[in-house]
């Protein structure tokens, strides 16, 4: 099986005596409250999903990531994983060597060994990561609201969160054993934040023809208004797999993090995460992790040229569409017919049809998938 990114699967989960000792110390420590997305990323570090990171980036690491898209040891890394705090919290932490990390319920979920607290330039951060300073970009808007300091250091996880998606939550150590048990050598990872239409299915099955298994790995976490809700995406995929996939060839599990909408940088980040889950290949479609018109539709594919050492093979696909003349899903390499025959898998159009309570045409979406979506009173984030 492929080595994890950076060569070693990180495990920062404390248990047994070490955990007990840590828990006895936390009352004395200053604390930082984490929101849900921050708790999820704390767990992503602890479970090794963000290997080789063991904590939040320090100043040197941050600027290497911003400027070089690499960690200081030259390992590819494109999205800064940081924890921001304000000046008041910085004062409160003072010279403490450790701080406890609490969830929104006030429970201690982790410990951070404070390595550094440093200032950073929010505009520079946003411009480098998102390629724009337009506040209409969700990532830029989020960055503008971050605290003025970043706190760096190694983390330990004390308490694993439970949620409604628990049965879809697999750690890299688990997916790696699972793939081995299934006898899969070549695994294609598929990232999604949508309910599947025929284009997605075709793309996954095309990849599946030359690998052993497909790892469907929807992002569960904060998304923008108008995106499908997490539970809808998962239920829709379950229906699709039940009706149209070989059970022994597909695995559905989630990646709990927020969408950054950082386009090309996020495509590399998404590939790294899937490498840690044990994938050998990663599917990159059109406008991966894009939003609006901030990125060229194929910028997220082009960026892979800069990373010959990524350690996971990208599989690039252009847009698929249905051709009425061919009678199936095609792309510009496989179909000779003019555009008049083509029906595009437009997310906007599909959403409009579903919002009217109608089932999209069968050449766009499987009825079983559409019925899941229509079963929800409001399937969209608002």
């Amino acid at each position, binding site marked *: *099986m*492929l*080595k*994890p990114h950076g*060569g070693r*699967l990180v495990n920062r989960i404390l248990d047994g005596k070490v955990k007990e000792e840590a828990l006895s110390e936390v009352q004395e420590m200053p604390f930082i409250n984490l929101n849900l997305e921050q708790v999820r990323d704390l767990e992503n570090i602890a479970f090794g999903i963000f290997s080789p990171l063991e904590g939040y980036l320090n*100043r*040197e690491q941050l*600027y290497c990531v911003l*400027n*070089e898209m690499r960690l200081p040891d*030259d390992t590819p890394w494109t999205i800064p994983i940081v924890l921001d705090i304000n000046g008041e919290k910085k004062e409160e932490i003072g010279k403490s060597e450790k701080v406890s990390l609490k969830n929104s319920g006030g429970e201690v979920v982790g410990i951070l060994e404070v390595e550094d607290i440093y*200032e*950073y*330039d929010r505009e520079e951060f946003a411009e480098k990561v998102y390629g724009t300073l337009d506040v209409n970009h969700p990532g830029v808007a989020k960055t503008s609201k971050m605290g003025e300091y970043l706190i760096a250091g190694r983390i330990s996880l004390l308490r694993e969160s439970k949620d409604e998606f628990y*049965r879809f939550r*697999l750690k890299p*150590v*688990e997916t*790696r*054993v*699972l793939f081995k*048990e299934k006898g899969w050598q070549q695994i294609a990872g598929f990232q999604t934040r949508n309910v599947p239409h025929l284009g997605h299915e075709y793309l996954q099955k095309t990849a599946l023809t030359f690998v052993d298994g497909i790892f469907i790995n929807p992002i569960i976490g904060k998304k923008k208004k108008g995106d499908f809700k997490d539970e809808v995406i998962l239920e829709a995929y379950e229906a699709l797999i039940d009706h149209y996939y070989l059970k022994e060839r597909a*695995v559905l*599990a989630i990646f709990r993090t927020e969408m950054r909408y950082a386009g090309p940088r996020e495509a590399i980040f998404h590939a790294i995460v899937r490498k840690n889950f044990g994938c050998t290949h990663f599917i990159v479609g059109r406008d991966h992790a894009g939003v609006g018109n901030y990125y060229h539709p194929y910028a997220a594919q082009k960026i892979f*040229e800069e*990373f*010959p*050492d*990524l*350690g996971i093979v990208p599989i690039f696909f252009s847009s698929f569409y249905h051709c009425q003349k061919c009678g199936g899903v095609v792309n510009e390499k496989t179909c000779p017919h003019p555009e008049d025959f083509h029906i595009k898998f437009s997310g906007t159009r599909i959403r409009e049809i579903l919002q009217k309570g109608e089932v999209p045409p069968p050449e766009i979406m499987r009825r079983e998938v559409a019925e899941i979506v229509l079963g929800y009173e409001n399937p969209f984030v608002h």
Partner: protein
Amino acid sequence: MVEDKDKKFTSVSIPTPLFEKIKERIKGTGFTSVSSYVVYVLREILAEEESEEEEPFTKEDEERVKERLRSLGYLD
């Protein structure tokens, strides 16, 4: 704010004829210098060497993981 933006580089010597050959080779490609080409190739070679088999899990760990996978329905 002090910014640590300085890229850390060091020099490696290569034979001049090889340098000239690479200079010719990269004309019209996306590589902007012989250095960027050499860095690319070296990263590629090192990554290939590093992608060897990882250490297997201990039997105990693997059994524990399999148990959870069964309880979640991922394994029969």
